[in-house]
């Protein structure tokens, strides 16, 4: 139930040295599966780094409630 994927731009891609850049002539539709996996792994890492920017109080509990 996701409206649109998180934007992943070439500019952002360029910042991630481990990820091969698509050449301008290469359509994303022609991605090889290995590229897709690398891109998605890079996404996970990027999300982690962006979330780390938030100063999290030690007492902040996750937004999940366990009911006994």
């Amino acid at each position, binding site marked *: *139930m*996701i*409206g*649109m*994927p*998180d*934007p*992943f*731009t*070439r*500019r952002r891609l360029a910042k991630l040295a481990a990820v091969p850049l698509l050449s301008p002539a290469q359509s*994303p*539709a022609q*991605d090889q*599966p290995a590229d*897709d*996996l690398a*891109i*998605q*792994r890079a*996404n*996970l890492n*990027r*999300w*982690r780094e*962006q*979330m*780390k*920017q*938030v100063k*999290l*109080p030690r007492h*902040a*509990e*996750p*937004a*999940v409630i366990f009911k006994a």
Partner: protein
Amino acid sequence: MAQIGDDVFFASLSQLQDGIRTRKFSCVELTRAWCDRLERYGPRFNALALLLREEAMRQAHDADGYFLRDRVRSPLQGIPYAVKDLVAVTRHPTTWGAKPFAGQVFDEDATVVKRIAKSGGVLIGKLSMVELAGGGGYLFPAASLQGPGLNPWDRSRWSGGSSSGSGSAVAAGLVPFALGSETSGSILTPSAYCGVTGLRPTYGLVSRAGCMALSWTLDKIGPMARTAEDCALVLAAISGGDSEDPGSANKRFIYAPQFVPPVKELRIGYNPTDFTEGCTPETRPEFAKALDAFRSLGVKMIETKLPDFPYGPMVSTIISAEMGSIFEDLVESGKVDELADKRQIAGIKTSQEVLAKDYLRAMRIRRLVQQSFAKMFLDFEMFLSPARNSIASKLSDPLNRPGPASSPIIPAGNLAGIPALCFPCGFAEGLPIGFALAGPPFTENKLVGVGKAFQSATDWHKRRPPLG
């Protein structure tokens, strides 16, 4: 034999009810006409997953019996509708829009289907969707069992996802209303792109029992219809506690327009840049005009900004982690490779690698998001933004094309679990644009009140796409 034409196909629910009560047409005639229309035009927009004509005619016959005995159970009695194909309907395939699940059949109706049946609504079909509701992150609109959702306003454009069929079917008058689902944007996006009114309810207000799970803490089921009031009437029928859904809030929605304060007394927060630099250039003048129309309702507009959090990374991490568990067997069986979108396949595979600490970090920040939103809504009652910052994309365009940084209302609102109403507010290059109006949890009645006031003053929601 009643003549059923465009005025009926684009009528509101109360107009349809009036027509049935005054014997302009029967429920059977209405259902037959809508089944014919959905069967004829549904495939034109890749919107139809399954037509349920036989059962629908039986239900319509029953509904006529109720009307003959002057028994009216709800405003939905005798009204045809359809559901996104992630909602279980007994004895029929529920494909989740994905090839690996094409033959899947459940032996029980989803709670929402049971509730509408109890209200007398007539289920005429199931509507197409993005495979697995987009979990994993798809790159192209073609990520669906039925092919890309085509926009009734321009078939070279996408209808939006993941409730693609629900959006295009309502817009083209193929059903009076439909159910969609939203984890992060899947009701608001197709509603905005197709020019229909969609209501994403507060998390927990509508049971998800019998519906595909993508993210337990984010999934919501909601109506897509012609007007804000129609959404309210449907929400009243489907809301309520359900012991089968652990996320249920055990609350009901009661549509009570008499309790909506006059719009002139309402304070609405908005970020002006969301409607200018935050939008694609072709939509800016149209959003400016729409904002003027909104202001002319007399509401007090307050400039503000949403609290600053990494909403996108948070929502993506949470969906990946929860989906990773939900679809673990799909990955292990190798059937994930049968999906249509390669980027999505990779996303589902890598969801197996999300670290617990990242998921928990996202969920801990989410708590802060909820607190910040609660504080924000002390200063104003609602927050207005563009539902999408562009018109519908071309079918051939990848969905990660760079564009202006849009309002984060979709991921932010979904993380906070708050309701949002999307309603059409104009056209740019012949394609609809829409507003998203969000409020604190369980304020759907107020949101609908404001949406109704806007729709009384404008006619964007009454526009009809040419079927050709």
